[in-house]
């Protein structure tokens, strides 16, 4: 039995992208000031209402755990624009990016190898299914045993968790290379690295990107957990420290920062994806007759 699981994130993502893109042209762009105004309203109304409701609720409630937004904001400014930026935020981000990059390199290269050979794939498939099913955070205690609690442990945790979605999506993507295209490339004598670059990696890229997107979300989770567990620096460490010392506005400020990082990384990824896959979007739009 093959694994439909891995394709789905990819295909839903692309279906999602397609849905987004079909909607885009219909949306009024710029145009009259009224339209621009209604767009701003669409974007801002609900967040403003939510923050307002929270501000009201926190100001009127006596709960110690829900500080008012302005307290959180001032804690945010004090904390993250000071030396903590260099002692906690940047090291965390460095581990995250190192781990993610390594996982991407390993995942894509192994995935291409596995995807091209039916026999190797048949041999390793059940094993990979099992390894993938292990929830990545449980590897944190194991990595502490194996590698101590320094940076290399955290990077290993991130790599060992993130590599699966990338690997399995790459395998699926490589498997699905259009046989006609592959034959054509063979007829024209395109081989070696050119074949890899022009045919295989390119055909598989929508799936690879979907795998990378899943892996990025996982990487943030693993970064935070590995730091919460055993660390002397990093965002996860800082937040747990605030929580244990009941520095509540600071704790909230840390959670807000994590949220902002997650949001920023996913926005950056979307940007990168739309650049890498611009040909794919164009292709799909063309087929839809737009």
């Amino acid at each position: 039995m093959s694994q439909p699981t891995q394709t789905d994130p990819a295909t839903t993502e692309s279906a999602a992208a397609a849905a987004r893109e079909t909607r885009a042209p219909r949306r009024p762009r710029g145009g009259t000031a009224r339209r621009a105004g209604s767009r701003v309203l669409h974007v801002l109304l609900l967040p403003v209402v939510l923050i307002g409701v929270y501000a009201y609720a926190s100001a009127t409630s006596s709960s110690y755990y829900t500080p008012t937004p302005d307290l959180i904001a001032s804690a945010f400014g004090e904390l993250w624009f000071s030396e903590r930026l260099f002692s906690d935020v940047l090291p965390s981000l460095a581990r995250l990016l190192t781990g993610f990059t390594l996982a991407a390199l390993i995942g894509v290269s192994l995935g291409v190898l596995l995807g091209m050979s039916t026999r190797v794939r048949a041999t390793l498939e059940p094993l990979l299914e099992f390894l993938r099913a292990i929830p990545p955070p449980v590897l944190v205690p194991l990595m502490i045993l194996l590698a101590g609690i320094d940076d290399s442990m955290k990077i290993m945790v991130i790599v060992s968790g993130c590599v699966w979605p990338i690997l399995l999506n790459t395998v699926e993507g490589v498997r699905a290379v259009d046989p006609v295209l592959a034959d054509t490339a063979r007829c024209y004598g395109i081989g070696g690295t050119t074949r890899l670059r022009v045919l295989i990696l390119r055909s598989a890229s929508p799936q690879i990107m979907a795998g990378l997107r899943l892996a990025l979300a996982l990487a943030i989770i693993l970064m935070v957990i590995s730091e919460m567990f055993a660390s002397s620096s990093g965002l996860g460490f800082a937040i747990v420290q605030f929580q244990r010392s009941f520095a509540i506005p600071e704790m909230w400020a840390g959670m807000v920062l994590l949220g902002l990082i997650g949001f920023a990384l996913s926005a950056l990824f979307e940007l990168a994806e739309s650049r890498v896959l611009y040909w794919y979007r164009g292709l799909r739009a063309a087929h839809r007759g737009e």
Partner: protein
Amino acid sequence: MTATPATESRAPDPPAPARSPRRPARDGLGRPLLGALGILAFLGLWEAVPRLGVVSDRYLPPATEVLVALGARATTPGFWAAVGDTLAGWALGLAIAFTAAVVLGFTLGALPRIRAYTTSTVDFLRPIPSVALIPLAVLLYGTDIRSTLLLVVYACFWLIYIQVLYGVADVDPVAEQTARSYGLGRLARVRHVVWPTTLPYLMTGLRLAAAVALILSITAQLVIGSPGIGREIAVAQSSGAVESVYALIVATGALGVVINTGVRVLERRVLRWHTSVRGEATA
């Protein structure tokens, strides 16, 4: 056989026919055999590496010892209580997220004007890693199961909700208009047109969410210390019981495989009328 919504939406694209119907390997009998061989080879390697002293067995106990430790644990009631706690957090969290996401997804999917106001908020909240909520969960609920639920529900809700929205948006306008011209009411249209279109998307969301729910339910136990396998692992690690750490990790993997397989079977059942599943049976 692949993602059901995908097969549909890709069908008109020329590259699609090559991608979507994935034929099972020709050597039908060889595949399971090769797979078993792969697992045996892995276990053999795992046994050999510490035995030959390549890696100290203080860090990597041989496979047999780990499996024996797992067997010994499986006879204790404490182990099954932990499995039960983990599964309770998983199932309850998934059920809450599923219900909320389906109700909200269908409601807002049917009201595009109101939905337009929520897009920015959803796009902002969705990428927030749910582990960011751990400190809040600890403060609010301590090591109670509600801490686990908070994380699981937050993470799973978005996955399913987004799928439902895409599903509702995917309704074929011709089908919709046909239903309208036959005089089907709003509810009947939801039942006969919108629901079947959304179901494949919903199942994909559910499958992704089932895996994520297990990850977060175990994470919460590991980090917060709410009861379950995750806490057992943390305890085994801090007491230096290396075999137990490995044994429990193998157990979580097995749990993951069971859940993945179960959801896949469910999906096939629920969607057996769908072309993607039917096509697979005949292929």
